C-alpha cells in the first residue's frame, strides 16, 4: 500500500481531536466535582437541591425507593410525594399559597390535583394545592420532621420518575392517621432563604449548583495544526455579575474556591498520556500499513508538541486543553 502523507496527517488530526475531546470531558467532570455548591442543607450535605416545578402524578409501587421501603418496615405507608418535571416557569415561581397537597388515588396511581398544561407549560392549581415556596428541596437523603411521626429518613429523590423531581412535602399514614412533613426542615437558614427567593434557581428549576451546572466544554477546534478546546463556567447573579470568575480567583474579602485550574492541572499528566497514546497508535498504524512511511519520515520533519495549558480569561474563566 502506498503511503499517502495527507491521509497520515488526517489520521494524526483525528487522533488529536479524539484525545482532546476525551481530555475536555475529564476536565469538565473534575471541575464539576470541585465547583463550590452553596451549602443549604444541615449536616454535611453539599448537594444542590432541586426545585420542583411542573407537577404531575406520581406512580408509587413497592419496588421504588428506600423511603417507601422504610415506610413499609416501620409500618408507615407513604402517601405522596409531589413530583414534577424540571422546568421552571415564571408562573410557578411566583405562586404563593398554603402548601397543602392532598391527593387522589386512581388505580394505585397517586394523582395530584395540580395539573400541568402541556401547551404553555403553566400550572393550574386548585387553591389547597398551591405551593408555598418557589423552590423545594428534593435531591437529598434527609431526616425530616413529620408532624405526628417524629423523624423520618429516606432518599426521597428515588421516588420520582427519571426526569422528574420530587418536591418537598411528604404525606405518611400510620395507624389510620395522616401526617405530613416538609423537607425544608432539613435546610439551613441560608437554604430557606434560597428557597424563598429562588435566587439561585437555574434554568432547569434547580436551586443551588448553578455554577456547577454551568461548567461545560467547547471544542475540540482545529486551527492551523492546533487542536484545542475550552472548559468554561459562567453563572450570573441577579445583577448580571458572573460569579464564576470571582469564585475562581476570589475577591478582596471573599476567599477563592478555584475549581477550573485545579481540575486541569490535576489531570494534565493523564491528558498528555492519552494524547501520546493516540499519536502512537496513529504512527504505528501508518508504519505498519504504509510501505513508504520510512521515506516520508526521513523527508518530512514532523514535529508534534503536546501541551496542556491553562488560561483564565476575565468574565468567562475557561481552562483549556490543547495540543498541536
Amino acid at each position, binding site marked *: 500500500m502506498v503511503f499517502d502523507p495527507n491521509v497520515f496527517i488526517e489520521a494524526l488530526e483525528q487522533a488529536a481531536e479524539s484525545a482532546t475531546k476525551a481530555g475536555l470531558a475529564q476536565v469538565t467532570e473534575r471541575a464539576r466535582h470541585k465547583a463550590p455548591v452553596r451549602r443549604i442543607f444541615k449536616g454535611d450535605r453539599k448537594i444542590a437541591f432541586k426545585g420542583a416545578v411542573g407537577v404531575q402524578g406520581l406512580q408509587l409501587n413497592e419496588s421504588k425507593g428506600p423511603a417507601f421501603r422504610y415506610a413499609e418496615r416501620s409500618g408507615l405507608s407513604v402517601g405522596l410525594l409531589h413530583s414534577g418535571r424540571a422546568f421552571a416557569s415564571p408562573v410557578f415561581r411566583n405562586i404563593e399559597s398554603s402548601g397543602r397537597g392532598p391527593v387522589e388515588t386512581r388505580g394505585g396511581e397517586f394523582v395530584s390535583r395540580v395539573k400541568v398544561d402541556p401547551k404553555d407549560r403553566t400550572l393550574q392549581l386548585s387553591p389547597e394545592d398551591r405551593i408555598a415556596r418557589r423552590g423545594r428541596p428534593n435531591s437529598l437523603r434527609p431526616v425530616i420532621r413529620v408532624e405526628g411521626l417524629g423523624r423520618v429518613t429516606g432518599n426521597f429523590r428515588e421516588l420520582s420518575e427519571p426526569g422528574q423531581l420530587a418536591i418537598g412535602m411528604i404525606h405518611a399514614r400510620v395507624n389510620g392517621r395522616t401526617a405530613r412533613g416538609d423537607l425544608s426542615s432539613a435546610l439551613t437558614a441560608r437554604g430557606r432563604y434560597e428557597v424563598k427567593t429562588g435566587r439561585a434557581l437555574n434554568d432547569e428549576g434547580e436551586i443551588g449548583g448553578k455554577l456547577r451546572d454551568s461548567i461545560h466544554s467547547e471544542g475540540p477546534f482545529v486551527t492551523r495544526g492546533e487542536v484545542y478546546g475550552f472548559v468554561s463556567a459562567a453563572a450570573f447573579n441577579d445583577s448580571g455579575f458572573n460569579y464564576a*470568575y470571582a469564585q475562581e480567583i*476570589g475577591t478582596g*474579602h471573599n476567599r477563592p474556591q478555584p475549581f477550573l485550574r485545579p481540575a486541569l492541572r490535576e489531570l494534565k499528566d493523564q491528558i498528555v498520556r492519552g494524547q501520546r497514546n493516540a499519536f502512537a497508535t496513529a504512527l504505528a498504524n501508518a508504519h505498519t500499513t504504509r510501505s513508504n512511511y520510512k521515506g516520508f519520515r526521513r523527508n518530512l520533519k514532523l514535529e508534534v508538541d503536546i501541551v496542556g495549558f491553562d488560561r*483564565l480569561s476575565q*468574565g468567562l474563566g475557561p481552562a483549556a486543553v490543547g495540543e498541536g
Partner: protein
Amino acid sequence: MATTSAPIKRSVVQAMRADVPLKAVIVGGIHESFAPEKVRYPFVTYNLVTAPYGDLWGSRVIVALMDVFAFAENPVDANNVDQLVLNVLDGAALSVDGQSALICKRVADLPGPPSLDSEGKKIYQIGGSYEIWTDQSL
C-alpha cells in the same frame, strides 16, 4: 521527611516581606486568600490554587500554582504593586523548607474587574499566577 505545599506558601510570603520597596507600599499587608474588613489599601492576597504531586524514583516534584493579587483604590496603584510583586517573585530563588525550589515564574496575568467594597468604594484587583516547581527526596 517529606514536606507539603505549606513551605512553598511560606517562602513566597517571606520573599515578598523581605522586599523593602514592596513592603513599604502595601500598607494593608499580605493576607492569605482574603483580607479582613477595614484593612487599608493597597494590600496583597495570595492563594494556593493547586499543588499536584509528581513522584518519580524516590523524588517528589510539586508544581504549585499560586495567585497573587494587589488590591488598591486606583488602578495605577494596583498595577504598581503588581509590578513590584512580579519583580520579587518572577525568577526568584525561593528558599523552601525541606525542598529544592527549581523555578518560580509568572505564568499568567489575572486582571480583575473593578468592584465595590462594603463602603461603596471602587476597588481594583490586579495580579497574576505564579508557578513554583520544587523537588524533594522521599
